[in-house]
């Protein structure tokens, strides 16, 4: 039932008070996010001059981005890596979320969640570098195996840079995937499952026919939460890939800063965002029947 806010009963309309209260934060977001994003959008249709950007409108930048084989392959690599990371991370995360939701007593759930999320709050930079140290030539893995007598010489686990990047990113984004799935699983009314078993279903069929569909909204959220930031990652391709296997973010940096092609860089950024948005929307559309069901 609606009611007037107390502040507004004394001062004026509820809408005015609400807007006034949110204005500092909203204005900040407009000035520092909406504004700059619009500027990037604008830049992308301008032209790069020798020192600065020229007010020359054209879609030439986009043409270059979409037709150049270099950019195409980088986009593709970014998509492949993100896709692989997402699949691996979500698949590995689901059983953990299930475990904490169904096999842990309520009083201990927050401790488990806390333990799972702590690594996420420490420096991402340091964690990526640690993977480099682990996987690198004569790194921790290699020297550990040699020390244990399993191998006989130093080796590198990073020769396949793409796989190394996938491992690193999956490790970093694991908690991102666990939490939404956990939340969705928690919301499932346990009496549904008991009713299913009561009617003769096995635990496995109960899972596939009841639990999994009901938790799909969490899985979808997890997919998006991992996919979107991963595709725009800078640090992992830089440290693990050694600069030889750049992804989109690294390319944007190169254009924007090193080559001072702000317009082209903007076009790259906008193109990346478009691709991400399209992939996300396709994914959401394919799964729309799961989104309505969950409360």
């Amino acid at each position: 039932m609606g009611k007037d806010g107390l502040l507004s009963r004394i001062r004026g309309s509820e809408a005015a008070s609400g807007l006034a209260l949110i204005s500092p934060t909203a204005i900040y977001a407009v000035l520092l996010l909406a504004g700059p994003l619009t500027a990037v959008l604008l830049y992308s249709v301008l032209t790069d001059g020798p020192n600065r950007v020229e007010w020359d409108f054209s879609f030439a930048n986009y043409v270059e981005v979409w037709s150049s084989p270099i950019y195409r392959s980088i986009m593709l690599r970014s998509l492949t890596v993100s896709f692989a990371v997402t699949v691996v991370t979500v698949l590995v995360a689901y059983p953990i979320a299930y475990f904490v939701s169904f096999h842990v007593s309520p009083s201990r759930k927050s401790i488990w969640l806390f333990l799972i999320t702590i690594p996420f709050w420490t420096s991402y930079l340091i964690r990526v570098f640690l993977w480099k140290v682990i996987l690198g030539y004569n790194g921790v893995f290699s020297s550990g195996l040699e020390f244990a007598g399993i191998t006989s010489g130093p080796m590198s686990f990073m020769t396949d840079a793409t796989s190394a990047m996938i491992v690193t990113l999956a490790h970093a984004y694991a908690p991102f995937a666990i939490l939404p799935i956990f939340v969705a699983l928690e919301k499932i009314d346990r009496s549904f499952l008991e009713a299913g078993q009561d009617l003769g279903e096995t635990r496995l069929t109960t899972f596939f026919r009841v639990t999994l569909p009901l938790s799909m909204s969490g899985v979808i959220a997890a997919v998006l939460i991992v996919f979107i930031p991963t595709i725009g990652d800078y640090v992992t391709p830089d440290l693990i890939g050694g600069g030889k296997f750049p992804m989109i973010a690294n390319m944007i940096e190169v254009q924007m800063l090193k080559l001072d092609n702000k317009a082209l860089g903007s076009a790259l950024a906008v193109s990346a965002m478009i691709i991400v948005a399209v992939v996300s929307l396709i994914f959401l559309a394919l799964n729309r029947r799961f989104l309505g069901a969950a409360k």
Partner: protein
Amino acid sequence: MKQGPGLRIYAIVYLVFLYAPILLLPMFAFNNSRVIAFPLSGFSTQWFVAMWEDEQLFRALRNSMIISSSTAIFATTLGIFAARATTRYRFPAKGGLIALIMLPLVLPEMIVAMSLLVVLLWIGIPLSIWTIILGHILLCTPFAVAILSSAFQSLDKSLEEAAYDLGEGPISTFRLIILPLVMPGIISSLLICFTISLDEFIVAYFLGGTDTPLSAYIYGQFRFPARVPAMLALGTILVMVSILLLSIAEYFRRRGLARTGAKDTGGFL
């Protein structure tokens, strides 16, 4: 639900996988060797000493302290405004404004950083600690809003009405009733924003100009293999500080729940 041991083993293995890289930090920070490899060469605190003697490091640390503290305070303040507005009032464009404020959570950091950079360069603002702070506030405010919204949401609405009924006005009600009850949320928000800002790299690296905060400094040092162990020592300390701050934040979150009698849904969600 019958408890199979398989899932539990999986969970524990997973946790080990999650923490393993981090556990390497103290292992090699105290290792008496310049090379990060097995076997271990004995205990040594030389890297911590080297770290301690690094003047540039302390300058970077000072920068980080200023940046992270300012970010925490400003982001939390903005978060209080937004959280209060969204939990108590209805107003037009509410959904859109919330989406805009929370947008940094789903955008790749690179895009946020580059957009901001483009505008700053265009206007001609020099890059410094302050531009980093601007970027960090943008990135941290969504977290502050999420934490504080939850805190404000768990407040019984009649508490405010009761305060009015007993003669108080809006400001004194906020001061005497609302603020003390959301204080655990505020402290949580301050600590979390501080930690996020401390660990953040992209904005710190690209928007700092000649000022380097800690994360950018560490990045630079990683290029020199000789400096790596000292950086691992620094990393060890950073991770421990982060974990400490987060544990305190979690403690306050739980205490806040106990006071208002709300239920624990587990985590900042």
